């Protein structure tokens, strides 16, 4: 067990009859934004429900903010939860709904009203707060869902697929809000998603579940370390540059927007410089290439392959 973990799963197992949803997984969630990544049925939602005390584990323990999640009801006052699916009433206003939920989280009525208005301002719904939620757009409803998870100022928020159903612009806004929630509000986040790009752009750490098993956990930067590839982008004469590079024995892979050059040490930069001069190609950008998470978790048939090399 990690002493400073906000949430700790200790050999957590959950079975539904013969179906194993979680198979003895152990991991810790620390301060920051942690992504919990996996396909449908990987055990993400089961883990979150156990942390929230909604499901009892078959064996093992879930320790949340130092308390056993299956026994402590009071600890939920310090947790926020944004479900994936619809969870909003249609006939009440966002201000009234958030005030009510803040009270249900234990805040006195006057404080609850103030917190509701403040939280709606932070998610960009202050002007719309007296409108019935039923008339909101999908993006606005997602913001209300996030606001209700934050209204009581929790220590940690568990977000279940927060970008589900959003268009690209709405998705970007939601990811910005998630980042802001940690960096400006100081609230730690557990972010469940099956979209690796969302996790990569938002999270500090990731936990990868597959078939109820923990397959990987660590810092996002550990997974996206620099590769032995240099990315070069030129404004013109790319074909001449490729010829010059290949003449120098460098393997070149052309892709949309530039060239990937394989090299084992820093001498490749001298070779590229000479080839650029020889080809007369104007250089726009040259940088060591970082791996994207999507490359690490490339699909191999039905199996999620983790940590595979390029």
């Amino acid at each position, binding site marked *: 067990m990690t002493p400073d973990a906000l949430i700790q799963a200790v050999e957590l197992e959950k079975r539904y009859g013969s179906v194993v949803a979680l198979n003895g997984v152990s991991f810790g969630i620390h301060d920051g934004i942690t992504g919990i990544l996996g396909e449908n049925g990987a055990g993400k939602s089961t883990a979150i429900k156990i942390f929230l005390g*909604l*499901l009892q584990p078959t064996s093992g323990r879930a320790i949340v903010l130092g308390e056993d999640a299956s026994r402590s009801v009071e600890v939920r006052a310090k947790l926020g939860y944004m*479900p994936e699916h619809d969870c909003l009433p249609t006939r009440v206003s966002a201000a009234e709904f958030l005030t009510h939920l803040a009270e249900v989280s234990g805040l006195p009525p006057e404080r609850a009203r103030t917190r509701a208005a403040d939280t709606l301002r932070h998610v960009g719904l202050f002007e719309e707060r007296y409108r019935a939620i039923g008339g909101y757009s999908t993006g606005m409803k997602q913001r209300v869902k996030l606001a209700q998870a934050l209204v009581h100022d929790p220590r940690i928020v568990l977000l279940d697929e927060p970008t589900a159903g959003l268009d690209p612009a709405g998705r970007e806004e939601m990811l910005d809000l998630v980042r802001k929630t940690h960096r400006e509000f100081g609230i730690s986040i557990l972010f469940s998603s099956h979209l690796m790009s969302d996790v990569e752009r938002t999270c500090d750490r990731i936990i990868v579940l597959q078939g109820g098993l923990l397959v990987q956990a660590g810092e996002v930067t550990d997974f996206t370390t620099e590769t032995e590839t240099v990315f070069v982008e030129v404004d013109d004469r790319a074909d001449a540059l490729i010829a010059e590079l290949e003449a120098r024995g460098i393997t070149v892979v052309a892709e949309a927007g530039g060239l990937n050059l394989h090299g084992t040490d820093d001498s490749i930069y001298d070779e590229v410089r000479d080839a650029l001069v020889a080809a007369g190609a104007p250089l726009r950008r040259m940088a060591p290439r970082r791996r994207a998470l999507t490359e690490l978790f490339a699909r191999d048939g039905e199996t999620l392959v983790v940590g595979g090399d390029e």
Partner: protein
Amino acid sequence: MSDGHATTLDEAGRTTEGTVFDIGYQRYSGPREGRHRARVAVFKDGIRIALGIGRGGRAKILPWTFIGLLVGIGFILALVAGAALRIAGPEGLEQLPTHSDFYGIASIFFFVFAAVVAPDLLCSDRRHGVINLYLVRPLTGVDYVVARWSAFMVVALGVAWAPQFVLLVGRLMGHPDPGGYFSENWTDVPHILLSGAALAAYMTTLAMLVAAFTKRRAYAAVFLVGLFVISTPFTAGLSTEIEGPVGQWISMFNLSNIPVHVNDMIFGEVSGVTSEAPARELGNTLLLVWYSAWVLIPGAILVERYRRLTP
């Protein structure tokens, strides 16, 4: 204006300055009242839902129509009592329906009120998924359902008592000697409170139980109205055709009469609707146990249903 700072001239030409500070997100450091506050909040919200407070006009139509109807019945009976007193004196009053008759006369309206309003306290939270947000807060499923039950119980008590007190005030006001009338009939007050509570507990528990098994308020309302509207003539007709203990037990399943039998026991008088019911022959003890079973067993099922509920 930059950084929230602005300088303007007022009507007198003086320079005024002002700054708007963005204090950003503030952590909450005030009191957290835990599970008790959560229960109170769900209870208060239940009352608001039942009466349509804070909702649009449409949400107010049904509850207030029935409240108006029931208070209206009490008001009409009060007017009639006042007129009878003036025309025929206290003897004229004896021929009119009394407090003990009221729940027998108006019970069907109470049941329809419960059937159409109570399910809204449970069904919509499950239908829209709001229950998911309750159960992740410092509140258990049992806390939630007990708070909702209590909320509708309070509303039902008000709806049950209000028309009786309108009738009581009408009778007092119409009597030539209100003080004398009250000293002779003061026991009506505890009787009204007790029998109203018995009726409210019965209709609240049954309506909530049915609502706990469907996400659609309309389904619960139709089922409940059907249950009471069909069971009443069906059991009444069958129990008069079949004599003996079988007929008496069939009469016990007249759902509208179950709380009215208790009402009769409390007032010590038999009301019009139960006077011919064969169930009366089974005795007060059995009728009281039967009533208790119809409140306690559905109540236990309701609590168990929400104890096991997970989003």
